[in-house]
């Protein structure tokens, strides 16, 4: 008990370490247990989070669109309607029981492999995110670039899906999806580079450690302790704010969510590369999309929103200088949830972008802005803060206005209906 209470937010980690210490006599078993303990929670929590998020998305979109959303499926086999919380269960059962149709001339090997290959990187990159101070499954030194590298494997899977269906609409949809994902990788990585540059490390735990104000955190003032965990976030700097917005928009494009969901929109090209997939393979594509959204939101909170820092106070009964009362993992998941809610909100609000608007936005607006962001971050690092902060905001705002005006020609002219009376 003393072990738990001396460091409340690290309680789970300390418990796990003590449990693993009991297995010291059997090193192979200890290694297996530690591997299972670091990866099983990810594989269990995030797919069930995916189920909850599908419910939340349907209810949220429905409320934005002035309707109610699923509210009938509650606890199965009873009459209890739990606001439709059983809907993901019903959807899962439906997807599993659907007939799995594969076109006769399709490339069976690639057609089978594509949904698997799209889910694997999405789940794999979750291991690189630190959910609390010592709660990272794979704390490698070059975590951020491994994240982007593994994320780019899903473009290959989408090409395989589009090609193997032997359907010209699937192929076209797959090509457009790949073009979109490859174009938006550049602002994604460049906006992450600013946070990496200022912190000086690709290690995700190190990126989070530097996002607090250490001198305030060590003081005895409760207010200063709370504020120290929040005021140091990267999003409260000019480059961090611009970087966060660019990262968020590029995330929406990378996971093919609205308003960038051209590849999978029903009214566009049937369903693009997903046309010939039914049943569980279709469900796997959506699982990959939502878990990719989770992983990218996790990286956004790591880079810009301060990771597992949140308003926290030190426990006064403990002598540990790193202990906090509220577990940091709670703040991490709250921020991820906030970003997912923001994604759902954006989906319900904005209309879909056309393919040339999409590409123009990436190459002519986001890329120059993210390159300028890197310069602003460098200048912010070297100038004193009372010059760097307002100068950064002013430069970024001027760039935003100028680039907006340069791209103004994309607006479609007002239509004239000659025969409308």
């Amino acid at each position: 008990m003393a072990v738990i209470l001396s460091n409340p937010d690290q309680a789970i980690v300390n418990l796990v370490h003590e449990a693993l210490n009991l297995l010291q006599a059997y090193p192979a078993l200890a290694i297996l247990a530690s591997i299972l303990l670091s990866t099983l929670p990810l594989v269990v929590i995030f797919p069930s989070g995916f189920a909850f998020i599908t419910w939340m998305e349907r209810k949220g979109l429905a409320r934005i669109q002035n309707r109610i959303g699923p509210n009938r499926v509650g606890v199965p086999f009873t009459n209890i309607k739990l606001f439709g919380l059983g809907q993901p269960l019903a959807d899962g059962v439906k997807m599993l029981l659907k007939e799995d149709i594969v076109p006769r001339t399709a490339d069976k090997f690639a057609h089978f492999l594509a949904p698997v290959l799209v889910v694997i990187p999405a789940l794999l990159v979750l291991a690189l995110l630190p959910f609390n101070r010592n709660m990272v499954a794979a704390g490698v030194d070059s975590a951020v670039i491994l994240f982007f590298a593994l994320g780019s494997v899903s473009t290959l899977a989408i090409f395989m899906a589009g090609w193997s269906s032997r359907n010209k609409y699937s192929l076209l949809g797959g090509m457009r999806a790949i073009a979109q994902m490859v174009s938006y990788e550049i602002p994604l990585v460049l906006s992450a580079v600013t946070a990496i540059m200022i912190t000086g490390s690709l290690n995700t735990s190190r990126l989070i450690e530097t996002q607090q104000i250490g001198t305030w955190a060590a003081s005895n003032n409760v207010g200063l302790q709370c504020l120290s965990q929040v005021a140091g976030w990267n999003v409260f700097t000019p480059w961090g704010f611009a970087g966060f917005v660019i990262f968020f928009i590029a995330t929406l494009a990378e996971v093919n969510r609205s308003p960038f969901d051209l590849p999978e929109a029903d009214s566009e090209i049937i369903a693009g590369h997903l046309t010939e997939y039914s049943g569980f393979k279709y469900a796997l594509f959506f699982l990959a999309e939502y878990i990719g959204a989770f992983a990218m939101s996790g990286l956004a909170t790591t880079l810009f929103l301060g990771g597992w820092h949140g308003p926290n106070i030190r426990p006064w009964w403990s002598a540990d200088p790193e202990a906090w009362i509220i577990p940091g993992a709670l703040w991490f998941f709250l921020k991820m949830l906030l970003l997912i809610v923001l994604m759902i909100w954006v989906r319900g609000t904005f209309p879909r972008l056309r393919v040339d608007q999409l590409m123009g936005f990436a190459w002519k607006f986001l890329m120059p802005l993210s390159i300028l962001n890197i310069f602003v971050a460098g200048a912010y690092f070297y100038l004193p803060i009372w010059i760097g902060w307002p100068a950064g905001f002013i430069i970024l705002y001027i760039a935003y206005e100028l680039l907006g005006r340069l791209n103004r020609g994309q607006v479609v002219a007002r239509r004239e209906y000659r025969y409308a009376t």
Partner: protein
Amino acid sequence: MNITFTILSTLAIVSALLAARLRNLVYAVLSLMIFFSALAALFIVLLAEFIGAVQILVYVGAVGILILFAIMLTHHIAGSTGERIDARGWFWAIPAAGAVLFGILLPAIIYTPLPLVPSSSTYEPSVLHLGQALMSPYAATLEIMALLLTAAMIGAVVIAMTLQPGDKEKHADQN
């Protein structure tokens, strides 16, 4: 011999063989992707984590997709015609390549005294040294590489463009 090295090297050799000898072009490229991933895993085993990540990012994520696009644009899966996949005079390539392998490479490996264990077993992989090396001795090379990449990008677009310099007026009204 390590189990990791055995598995990764077998995977690399088998996928390289498939990539070089398969008739169906898309399957050849997919096994090339497996080869790149096996090599990236070998780089990570050799404690060059950044290079392993760059290998996946550049080769699997970009060069592989590029090759697949080129295959799609040239429409030649080469599976259906029934012709042989080897060029004329393929027989003489085997002794030539064999001479390179058994005459140059393998003797060089066998007759050189090579270390058996890494002499710095306390090396911690870190990107800091790479960044410092890129900035201090090799900054000029970095700039030249940037120029090369820009030139390659512009060159590839110019070569593969459909619009010839005289067609600007003809195609301008179609947009």
